[in-house]
Each structure stands twice: as C-alpha cells, then as structure tokens.
C-alpha cells in the first residue's frame, strides 16, 4: 500500500473500549506472590499491547496511526524507534508527545529502546529515554538494563531481544527492576511455561501474537544494500515501505523481509488460533504494527479474548489482513516458518 495513506482502517465496529487492566503482578507488588501457573483461564484478563512500530512510515501516517489507536481496545502501546537511529520522521520528543496523547486516552504508553546500540549518540538517546519519568521503559539491550539500574527505575519491561531463556536470568532482570518480560519470539510456549513454573515470583508475561517476526539485527542496512547505497548515505529508502521489502527464494517463495538493519520473516506470525493456550500463560499479547489493518487485528484479538469469536472463525477472518501466509512454528517448538493447527504440540 501507499504509506502516505492512512495506514490503519480505524477501529472495527463493536470494538470494546479500553478496560481497566487486570494484572497478576502489578508494578511494585509484593514479590512473594507464588503463581507457578496462571489460574484457570479468564480470557478477559489478557490485555492487548501494540508493539513498537518496526517500519519507517512518513510522519503524518505514523501520527494518524497512533491517533486511531487511541480509540482501539489496545491497552498498552510501545513507542519509539527500536530499529535504526537514522530514522527521524519522529524524534524522541515527538514520541513522548504521542505517549502523552495515548496516556490521556487511557492507554499505558511505554518507551522502547533501540535494540542495537552502536554509537555514543545512540547512548545519548537511550539516556534520555531512561531519564524521562513519565513513561515506563522497555529495555531491548543490556545497556538499557544498566542505565535503568543506575537510575533506580523499578518498573521497566525486559524486551524481547534481552535473551531471557531461563529462570535465573529472568530472576536477575526482576531483581534489577523489571516487572514484565516480553518473551523472545523464538521461545516455544512449552519452554516459556516451564520457565514460569520455576519462578518463585511471576512477572507479567507478554507474548508476540501477531506480526512479521523480527529475526535479526545487523550493522548493515539491507534496504540500502538493495539500492546499492551505503547506510551512511542511505537516502532513507526504507521510508514509505510500509511492511518492508520481501525477499524471495530463487523459486519465488517469500522467505524473509528486509527492514533496514532488521531482517524479519516474510510470513506473519499469527497466534490468534492459539489464543486459548497463549492466554493461559500470557498476561499480555503483543500485536506488531503493519502497514494496514492493524486496528482490525487488535479488535479481532479482543473479540477472541472476550470469548465473542471462536478461534477458527477468527483465524479465517485474520487471513485477509495478513501480508503473507501465517506461521506459528516458534510457539509450537518447531521451525518458525511452519504453521501448526492449535492443539498440535
């Protein structure tokens, strides 16, 4: 699509208004709550988060997207540039303005930090994100963990690139002030629940449930490379590629997506049919923004979580909003690009 158009389609009819969050462990809650596994599923209690925008959209398209999100059933919104420091349609102050707007609309806004920190100027931005006290911070690199610790912040979110794979590491992050962790996308549901079962105190748990999978970061910009440009003089060619550029195998099979220095899956990680299982363990499901229909997707997840739409029907409806075929292999402990019907381990 043309990203200068409105990248969203507005809230779907019948979408519920934002609800009061129902948390298992609220920030600052006593850590002695023993919750080895989440109690019997009350689907309503699982909240929807919209992850940070991974693509580079024009300023107005980005602002419009978040303006629409203010009226959506998403309760948590992650903001900020996490992929490439050269992107500047919105500067940090602009992102903070968006955060304030969403907070006024009753959303919980979170500032996400850049995953790959290379330069002193990257660190400068990071320090500013940590220093602002209005919004919680998603730490996507250990540099952020250190700075948050130094600042005495006790309310941050351990992001999906921190490589938290075992109880000891998750415990360390909680000790350092994390109250929520976003599970690494490559981790299976089984491994995640085994980890949580060993935690003496459970942090809020967030699982990526929709979107192209962020698979890798590099110093190299693959979008610039595609146009025979260097990163330092990239001409911002990723601007306006609302869902990145698809990379196909030489047999024409869509395989990966080039998004600047980030490489994503071509297929769309879609756990909507797995929601019964996911919601059993996750307090929050994350929707990753895409060029179009993000709000439709958010509304559909809310319907499923509220028990208003069944998994099969929801999956069928979701297919028209996917930019590519579905995958969910990671959740099932399989190659990430596979799709497995729910219930098949």
């Amino acid at each position: 699509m043309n990203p200068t158009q409105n990248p969203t389609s507005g809230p779907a009819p019948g979408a519920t208004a934002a609800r009061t969050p129902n948390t298992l462990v609220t920030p600052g809650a006593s850590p002695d709550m023993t919750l080895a596994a989440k109690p019997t599923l009350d689907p309503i209690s699982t909240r929807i988060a919209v992850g940070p925008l991974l693509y580079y959209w024009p300023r107005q398209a980005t602002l419009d997207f978040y303006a629409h999100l203010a009226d959506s059933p998403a309760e948590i919104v992650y903001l900020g540039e996490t992929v490439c420091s050269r992107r500047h349609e919105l500067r940090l102050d602009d992102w903070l303005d968006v955060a304030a707007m969403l907070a006024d609309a009753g959303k919980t806004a979170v500032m996400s930090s850049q995953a790959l920190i290379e330069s002193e100027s990257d660190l400068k931005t990071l320090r500013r994100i940590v220093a602002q006290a209005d919004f919680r911070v998603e730490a996507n690199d250990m540099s952020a963990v250190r700075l948050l610790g130094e600042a005495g912040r006790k309310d941050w979110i351990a992001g999906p690139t921190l490589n938290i794979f075992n109880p000891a590491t998750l415990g360390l992050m909680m000790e350092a002030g994390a109250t929520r962790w976003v599970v690494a996308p490559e981790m299976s549901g089984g491994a995640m629940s085994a980890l949580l079962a060993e935690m003496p105190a459970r942090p809020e748990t967030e699982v990526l449930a929709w979107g192209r999978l962020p698979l890798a970061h590099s110093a190299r910009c693959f979008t610039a490379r595609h146009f025979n440009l260097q990163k330092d003089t990239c001409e911002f060619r990723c601007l306006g590629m609302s869902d990145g550029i698809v990379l196909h195998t030489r047999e024409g099979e869509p395989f990966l997506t080039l998004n600047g220095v980030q490489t994503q899956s071509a297929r769309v990680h879609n756990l909507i049919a797995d929601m019964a299982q996911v919601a059993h363990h996750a307090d929050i499901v994350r929707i990753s923004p895409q060029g179009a229909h993000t709000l439709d997707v958010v509304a559909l997840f809310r319907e499923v979580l509220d028990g208003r739409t069944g998994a099969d029907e929801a999956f069928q409806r979701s297919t028209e909003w996917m930019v590519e075929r579905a995958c969910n292999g990671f959740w099932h402990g399989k190659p990430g690009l596979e799709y497995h019907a729910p219930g098949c381990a």
Partner: protein
Amino acid sequence: MTQQKIELVCPAGSLPALKTAVDHGADCIYVGFKDATNARNFTGLNFDPKAMREGVNYAHARRRKVLLALNTYPQAHNWADWTAAIDRAAEFGIDAVILADPGLMTYAAKTHPQLRLHLSVQGSATSYEAINYYHERFGIQRAVLPRVLALAQVEQVIANTPVEIEVFGFGGLCVMVEGRCALSAYATGESPNCNGACSPGKHVRWEQTPKGMETRLNGILIDRFGDAERAGYPTLCKGRFEVNDETYYALEEPTSLNTIEMLPDLARAGVRAIKIEGRQRSPAYVAQVTKVWRAAIDRVLADADHFTVQPAWMAELDKVSEGRSHTLGAYYRPWK
C-alpha cells in the same frame, strides 16, 4: 609508548587442532564440550572429558591458556547441563569460561569465584554500557565484541570500560549481531542461541538439477550454482535470493572477515585479544591461520608504525577463506 600485549585466540574443534594451535603460536585456544552448551554444536566436533583434560595439560605445559565456550542459552529443562559444564571447566583447570547468559554468570561467579569470566560475542554487548553491566554484576574480565562496530566505535568502547576487549580478526563472518539472530531457528528450528547451531548440516541438501547444483536448508532453496561456480555451504544469510526481481546476495556474500591490514589500528585502539573464528574447521586451517596471525601480531608488537601486510600472508589466508574472498566487515563503514 610500549605496546600492550595482544593475545592471539585460536579455535580448536578437536584435540589435534588444539595441539596444532599451540604449536603454531596461539596464546589462547578456545574449545567447547561435545554438546549444545556451545555455539559450534556440530556432529563429530568438540571435546569429551578425556580430550579436554589432555588438551588443557598440553596447553598448560607450554604456558598457553585454554578458554571454554559455554556461550549458548540454557533453558529450564536443561539448565543443569550448563551448570555441570561450568563445574567441569573449574575442575579441569580451564583458564576462562566464555559465557553469554547472565543467569549462568551468576552461577559461575557464586559457585566458582576464582573462575575467570569472559563475555561471549553471543551476549550481543555492543556498547560500554552493556559491557560494564556484566563487569559490575558478574566481574567479567574480557568481552568479545560482536562484528558490528566500526573502528572508532571500538575505540570508544575501550576508552570507557575496564574490561579487556577482544575482537574477531579472521574467519567466517556473521553479518547479523551475534546472539540476536533467529534466522536459523526460523528456517530449521535449531537456533544459535539455544541449540548452538546455525544452518545445521542435518538440514542441508545438495541436489544436482537441470538448473544447476541446488543447496537447500530444510527444503528452502538457499542458492543455485552454475557449472562454473563453486557451490558453497548453504549458510542461510549467504545465499542468493530475489528482491524486487533482482537475484543477488541480498544479505552477504560467502566471504570471510580478515582484518589483518587493520592490526596496527586495533593495537593502537587498545584491543587486548584477536579472535580467529573456526572451531568447525580442520587442524590444517588452524595451522595456516595461526601461523600467519602469530607472525603479524609479533610484527605489530615489535613496531606497529612500520607494519606492512605481507602478500604471502594474504595469499595463505585467502586459500582458507569462505568463498576465497575476504572483507573488513563492519570495521569498514561502507560495508554497512
């Protein structure tokens, strides 16, 4: 100014490779156990306890160090395998363990406070703030930098941390930030982070077809080679793909990192160790590469200002390079 010592850190996937590295002048040899606790978990590779003891004895008798890579991320169900590996490292007299997982660092620091800790490249620490976190929290003494920083950025890291910095000098080039790459997991289900394998051999298929030699990874076509082309291993970031109808190496060419020409700069920047990639390679590779880098480092330590790259060194190194070509990678800004 006196030049600080720069250690040459060489790979060994077997006891013969370890001995070869020692004999050809490596200061440190890094190794792994025969399991998923390290990032080169390949069939037929690595050390069982007997080989490990012998290797450590061989190196120590010649005043060289043995470093153990335990640089994958354990999970709840296999946690005990990793802690047992740390216990064995301490028992065998390993000189340092190379770790990526913070939970495991806690265990090592608590259980074996005398054991020296290095931060693996798989820890993805690209800034001094990240490195200093591991230093303050676990007392790591050295960090291996991911292959993403330009030289000036390496200098900036060194100027702001008490931790010794080790950089990759030569060998297979990860184009992605190490520890942050799930491409192999996406395609095959086996990840560098958790299984210690990238593009693992058991998922590889070579097929001669009318269109040419095709290489596949778990059924996915990674590349196709004409008769005149040398078919390379299907490491998935080094295949040819189609983007907007253009077929090319969309992520990276099959090429090796070779920073030998930057050695004086790296020395001046204060780099304390140069790592050679390739535990999966043969003892012959280890011999060749160790010999050349030993000579080059000795030359730099003697007189960095008059260092010149010997054409014979480059010829030797290119012979064992992936795709028989080399790059400066991210050290050279235009590469990015």
